């Protein structure tokens, strides 16, 4: 028995551009079902742009984004919308609709895309809020809750339709380390229990090593990807200076981040 069958996501020869300006080119990687996939790289390298391409907000200049072998951008409007309904997206700020209560925010996709009765929608809303630890906050407006709670409510909305793939754009942004860690745990628990694939745009080392099991590293200077594999493997085995500099920031600054394998590598050096 399964919750749902998540499908592999393949990025094939993807080039992203704004007009004539190429943001990233020749991106090739695969996200396996059930992965917690990290899109990482320095500021302004095109992480969020890649996310926008993957969720159907921005069309590629070249290349394909395949969900279970079906190209998102080569599908007709109806197919594309059908595919996009399988996505849940948590935006950086939560992006809750400010004129609606939390319950209304979560109920909207359920009202649009299911034939559930009002009572069943209400039950779903309460369930999704309780999953993110916000049971009882149904009638609050986004302006009445904290930033961290907005993020969690945004996550509740993102999982409203039990998506196959959940995308997170900088989930840790604006959160204190404790809240950030709690959100990471929540993402992990939801992935394990929902069986969904999770794609996260982040440059937070703590999150990358705590929950990521696959990743792509985007480089601003060369405007392409440098590697795509488990972040722990990247740290331990990849010799590219740009990747090592990025992944070892915690050690350089002497912060609490000490990813597995990093100390051994330092000792070897």
């Amino acid at each position, binding site marked *: 028995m399964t919750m*749902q069958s998540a499908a592999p996501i393949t990025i094939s020869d993807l080039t992203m551009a704004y007009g004539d300006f190429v943001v990233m080119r020749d991106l090739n990687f695969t996200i396996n079902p059930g992965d917690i996939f990290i899109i990482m790289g320095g500021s302004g390298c095109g992480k969020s742009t890649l996310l926008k391409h993957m969720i159907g907000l921005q069309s590629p200049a070249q290349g394909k984004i395949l969900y279970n072998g079906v190209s998102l951008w080569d599908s007709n409007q109806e197919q594309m919308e059908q595919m996009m309904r*399988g996505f849940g997206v948590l935006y950086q700020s939560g992006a809750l609709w*400010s004129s609606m209560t939390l319950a209304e925010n979560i109920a909207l996709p359920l009202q649009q895309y299911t034939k559930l009765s009002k009572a069943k929608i209400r039950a779903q809303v309460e369930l999704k809020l*309780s999953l993110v630890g916000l*049971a*009882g906050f149904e009638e609050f407006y986004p302006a009445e809750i904290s930033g961290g709670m907005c993020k969690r409510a945004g996550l509740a909305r993102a999982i409203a339709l039990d998506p196959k793939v959940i995308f997170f754009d900088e989930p840790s942004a604006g959160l204190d380390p404790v809240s950030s860690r709690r959100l990471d745990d929540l993402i992990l628990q939801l992935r*394990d229990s929902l069986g969904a694939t999770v794609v996260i745009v982040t440059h937070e080392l703590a999150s990358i090593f705590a929950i990521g099991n696959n990743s792509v590293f985007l480089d601003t200077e060369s405007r392409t990807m440098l590697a795509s594999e488990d972040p722990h493997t990247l740290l331990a085995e990849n010799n590219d200076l740009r990747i090592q500099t990025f992944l070892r920031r915690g050690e350089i600054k002497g912060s609490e981040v000490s990813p597995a394998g990093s100390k051994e590598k330092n000792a070897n050096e």
Partner: protein
Amino acid sequence: MATASTEPAAVHPAFRSDEQVTLHLIGTWQMEVTIPEVESIWKQVQSRSVRQISFDAEQLISWDSSILTFLVDLADRCQKKGLAMQTDGLPAGVQQLLSLARAVPKQEETKSFAPAESFLERVGEEAICFIRSAGELLTFIGATSLAFGRMLQGRAKFRPYDFKLFLEETGANAVPIISLISFLFGLILSFVGIIQLELFGAQIYVADLVGIAMVRVMGAVVVGIIMAGRTGAAFAAQLGTMQVNEEIDALKTLAISPVEFLVLPRMLALTLMMPFLTLYADLMGILGGALIGCTVYGINPIEFFNRVKAAVSLNDLFIGLFMGLVFGILVALSGCLRGIQCGRNASAVGDAATSAVVTSLVAIIIATAVIIIICAVLGI
């Protein structure tokens, strides 16, 4: 969401004894299909002295969060009645989600709802609100006047570039819409007037009608209304968005007065541009009137413009320009005031823009009436 099969969702209770029941979860439990009601199962459980509920999910084909809503409801009922619910027969994912959903207790009464207010209370509150907003308006006018005073002393802080930008936005960029509306307004005025004047064989006096109406009042009113909808709303939306993004707070913490930095350049630009726009609207209106008079009713164009020149005095022109100036102040004041008063969310920005337009229009009409009455009393 993939659906392996569409075999309907069902629950079959198997009573192992009067105290123990195993619920067999069967079929496809997904949002698209109808799932069993907890109530019917609960009635069966209640009909015996059940102390423990367990589950068997061997025949469960697929599931989504709809199974969770069923189980959470059942768990709540069990908790209230003191029944034990063993979840180890459920799929691992369901067990995890169930424990996650019940990990944080529900916050009871986290939001206090105000009791319904009586009619009198609401009237009272509205009255207090009105008085408060009048106070805020006076405060804002005071702050703007002080900022204007500081500007005259060369002490006001705002960027000249912003001022130039607003001059362009409120002046040159508004010319096309003002051309169209005032031309058509003059045309309509002329058409309606000439039909009546024709009854007395006095078509030529349509030039007087259009000329005096446009120059003395209507040119300024038309421009005022256009600018209220176009520029006043834009000012409110701009400042409102800045309020939402905490940009105004950032100015305050730098000890830069938002009234000086944001309101003053907007107000100056619009106030300076309004008389010019009014003059332009007057000309376009007269042209519109002339078009109807000369083409449809065969009035000689030179004769038409001579009549206008004779009918319109400098007094009329200055009154019209003065009205334009006053309307500029009122529109800018309303737009900026509503923008500064804006709340901290997206809908508040919309409310601010709407309120700015309504306030501007009311202010324009009241000001028009006041100026006309004063002119009548003074005999000018």
